């Protein structure tokens, strides 16, 4: 596989062009079609860049720049060594597999740095992992951060996809309502700030019932896009369903 540059997802490429629903990227990276593999790797990198970065910061106590370099290095190495192809669906979740390999990579990188400081030999980084089932044995907090960032990445991508879809189909008002009520936090407005459907209706010159219907449709479309994205980054139906349950399970927010 040709070496590609791992590019951190910018807000423009996260929120702008959401790819159409495709089959699992994890199957795509294992195929022979170069174009499909490239697109599959881009999908994986776009979803996992920030979770990996946050995990490195917390688990490995790296500073901002160090964490960015290690994230970049991890994905570059993964692409160079075709590491995503080593994932065996059914043995573990991809998230677990990736985290185990990430730990291995960082540990090796740190070891190599220490050798360099002591004037040691050549730098050898390995991504090889026994398999995705290996216990991590780390504090809960970095794991939670990884999972939280994973959800944030998926939701950010889905919001970008929803906006692109609604702009293309002339539903900017529906997106504006969704953004105002569901995406604004705290004092800035939204449900936390005491905004009601009637308030939104008055602002946009429509009835509260129409606001209700538009919001229900937007949430339904948002969910559809999130699930389509999730399907792309899971390998099996079982993994998809288990991840979907985790993705949407949460305690009610204060405004619920």
């Amino acid at each position, binding site marked *: 596989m040709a070496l590609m540059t791992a590019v951190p997802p910018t807000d423009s490429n996260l929120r702008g062009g959401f790819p159409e629903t495709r089959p699992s990227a994890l199957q795509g990276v294992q195929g022979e079609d170069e174009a499909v593999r490239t697109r599959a790797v881009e999908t994986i990198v776009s979803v996992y860049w920030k979770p990996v970065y946050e995990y490195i910061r917390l688990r490995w106590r790296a500073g901002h720049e160090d964490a960015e370099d290690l994230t970049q290095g991890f994905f570059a190495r993964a692409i160079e060594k075709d590491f995503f192809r080593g994932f065996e669906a059914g043995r573990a979740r991809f998230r677990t597999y990736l985290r185990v390999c990430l730990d291995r990579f960082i540990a090796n990188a740190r070891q190599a740095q220490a050798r360099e400081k002591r004037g040691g030999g050549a730098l050898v980084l390995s991504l090889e992992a026994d398999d995705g089932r290996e216990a991590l044995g780390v504090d809960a907090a970095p794991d939670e951060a990884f999972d939280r960032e994973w*959800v*944030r990445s998926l939701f950010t991508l889905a919001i970008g996809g929803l906006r692109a879809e609604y702009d293309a189909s002339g539903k900017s008002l529906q997106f504006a309502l969704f953004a105002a009520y569901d995406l604004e936090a705290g004092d800035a407005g939204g449900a936390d700030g005491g905004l009601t459907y009637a308030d939104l209706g008055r602002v946009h010159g429509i009835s509260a019932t129409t606001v209700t219907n538009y919001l229900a449709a937007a949430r339904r479309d948002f969910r559809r896009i999130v699930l389509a994205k999730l399907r792309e980054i899971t390998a099996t139906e079982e993994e998809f369903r288990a991840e979907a349950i985790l993705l949407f*399970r949460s305690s009610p927010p204060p405004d619920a």
Partner: protein
Amino acid sequence: MPEPPLPDAVIARLQFRCEEPDLAACGHLLGPELGRGGMGVVYRAHDPELGRDVALKVVPVADADRPDALERLRREARTLARLEHPGIVPVHTVGVLPDGRIFYTMRLVQGERLDRFAAAGPDRPLPEMLRLFVRVCETVAFAHAAGVVHRDLKPANLMVGAFGDVLVLDWGLAHSAGDGISPRRQGGTRGFMAPEQESGDAGEIEPRTDVFALGAVLRFLAGCGGRPTPNALRSIIARATATVPASRYAAVSDLAADVLRFLDGERVTAHRESIWERLTRLIRRHRVLLGLVLAYLVMRAVLFFFLPG
């Protein structure tokens, strides 16, 4: 200018809004989640019109776009509506949420799942557990008479009420004769699933499939608390869980009848007794009568040997 990352509060709100059923249209007020399975999420809900709490089952959000999952829940509601029996939770309403998910409301039942009930009281006498089992059999036999095979009977799907009533829950996998839908590809629970169900042999799904699962439930109940299982009961379990369907009890009522015979100290059809087993069973069964005869004989002996003349 790059947009700031989504705040945690917004993520939590989106997670909740995506899963939370919007009940505004049906006039119910949503309560806490009560349970979650592969085919549905169950919430407590309040019906302000009638002033009562109900249970509301809805297709999980992960399956919202799967027509087969939506149809399955609708079919489950229809099946339950057909089966009016004290051992089956009655359905109140079926509807579609604004996001397209199917839901239905049913009576909110109070009780404990049979597996937890058994774990909480491992010392409960075997006859008590067997009488609960017979009630489950009666409910399942009623469903079979209506042409419905449950296909997912297990302790977690049986609920023991506060007054000893037993409810058979989760009819999501039920197969109704004549609904034209092949049961193939649908799941079940390992350990309680008949071999023909596990192999996906749709042609073999019949009441004997439930007989197998009930046999596994009986094995679970008999083994609670680590007590030894009597031979006759072991034979009942073996016949109910035979690999070949034709070797099992032909009907759930036959299984229940054998368990009742065991409870009454009668000979069970599934077990070939040894003479010693037969003797001990008869002694146990007629112990009161035997006690009286023995007392009479002792009294006569005392009178004969110790009274003058």
